């Protein structure tokens, strides 16, 4: 079982999974922010905002993530010269690729977050919004104090699914040279073709360890935090 010790020592597999986790968490926060804004735009009374929100979701959801990430690197950086890190720094290439990957992952998953929140808004009974309007709250206050807090609690399960998908999709960042788990797995498989089953097993179990607790946690949270009606 020297492969397992190689995984820890030679290839620094833990560092690779740490990168996966950082990618996931940073993108999750950004995606939640963008997604909430898009969801609010889609339910807003202003027609233009609705159209923009819907267009964003329809375009981004139907584009492959690989294309989004490749576009971030080849398009944004190489062709348009958008750099997200300090160019003089020694770690410029790594930092820049990592941040571009975060941008790509966030923009892509924001559309799913927006849909999850919208489905959460659907779980809020009509009477809630009607009551909020009846006491004279304007649209934004209705959203902020009455609808969104309940919508988020109703959207926990689908948001958990987005987070799980995001964890798995962060592997695509390897296409622009971020050394996360799948990139390290590829190198290990190339160097040790005799034990690819073990190598695959190690990395697959790593992802199972990352995603299973998230699923369990979000399911229990969605039950515990469900709005009692």
């Amino acid at each position, binding site marked *: 079982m020297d492969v397992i010790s190689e995984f820890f020592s030679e290839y620094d597999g833990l560092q690779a999974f740490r990168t996966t986790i950082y990618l996931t968490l940073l993108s999750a926060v950004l995606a939640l922010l963008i997604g909430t804004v898009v969801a609010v735009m889609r*339910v807003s009374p*202003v027609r233009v905002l609705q159209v*923009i929100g819907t267009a964003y979701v329809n375009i981004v959801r*139907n584009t492959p993530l690989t294309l989004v990430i490749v*576009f971030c690197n080849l398009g944004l950086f190489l062709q348009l010269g958008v750099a997200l890190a300090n160019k003089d720094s020694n770690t410029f290439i790594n930092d820049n690729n990592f941040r571009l990957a975060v941008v790509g992952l966030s923009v892509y998953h924001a559309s799913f*977050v927006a849909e999850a929140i919208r489905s959460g808004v*659907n779980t809020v009974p009509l009477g809630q919004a009607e009551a909020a309007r009846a006491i004279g709250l304007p649209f934004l206050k209705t959203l902020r104090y009455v609808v969104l807090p309940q919508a988020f609690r109703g959207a926990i399960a689908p948001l958990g699914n987005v987070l799980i998908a995001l964890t798995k999709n962060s592997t695509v960042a390897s296409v622009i040279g971020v050394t996360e788990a799948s990139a390290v797995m590829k190198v290990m498989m190339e160097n040790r073709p005799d034990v690819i089953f073990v190598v695959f097993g190690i990395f*697959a179990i790593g992802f199972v360890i990352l995603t299973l607790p998230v699923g369990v946690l979000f399911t229990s949270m969605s039950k515990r935090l469900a709005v009692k009606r």
Partner: protein
Amino acid sequence: MSSSSVLFDAPGPRAKRLYAAVGVGSIVVLLLILWFVIDKFNAKDQLTAAKWKPFLTGEIWTQYLIPGLVGTLIAAAISVVFAMLVGVLLGVGRLSTQAWVRWPSSVIVEFFRAVPVLLMMLFTYALYANYEVFPPERLALAAVVTGLTLYNGSVVAELVRSGVYSLPKGQGEAAMAIGLTSGKSMRLILLPQAITAMLPAIVGQLVVILKDTALGYIITYEELLRKAEQIGNFTSNLLPALIVVGAIFVIVNYLLSLAAQRVERMMRRRGRSAGGPLTADPTDQNAAIGAFAGAGASDTVDTN
């Protein structure tokens, strides 16, 4: 959304003015962003005719874009067929009354849903290469299809399971009452209805499969994205090529989503199944999770 108008009243004169102002304001912001992007493109000479004209020539289409689209569609089509087969087998396996069938099926389904598709593609690519299972020129296609089949097969298995669960209990009980074995009841009564109920979700899953074929780019499969890169090298217009290919993906996938909605409406009208149609978000990798969370409820737009 039953109707978004629940969240706000019919606007009075003041609200109308406010909405109009916000509307105009957001158009201005949008135009500013657009102007900024165009300016950026212009500064890097990305908007010159030389960069975009190749897409009007037949050569780019016959040499690159159409073969790329064909590659994407072939991989997607083969994966769909295999994923359906694997999915129905695993789904029925999970519902089996025999524990020794049920448990392995459950483990397989949960495992392949938790592991990234890319990991499976990289693994099967290495596997097929080492043991020379496929000729070298078919290697990438085989790995793409295997990865997509394993993942989407387990997604379809969950769809089958939720489809069967969504049927009224009386269906299985009636089958038992007329003396069918559990296998026969599954095959003759439950499965046909479950598959009908699943149809919209399966058409939705097509979008996921089609998008995921782009992962083949990473293992050098000749699909649309790879072709975009080749166009970029050939006529040195990578950015326009990526944009055109993105547009092709969006159009094809959008048409598929529309088809999924149509199938769902059709089934709601015809009602051939005792359960309601299942819907899935026709999008990302875990479409089915949404489907079984919202089995039967039509406008659950669960994601991912």
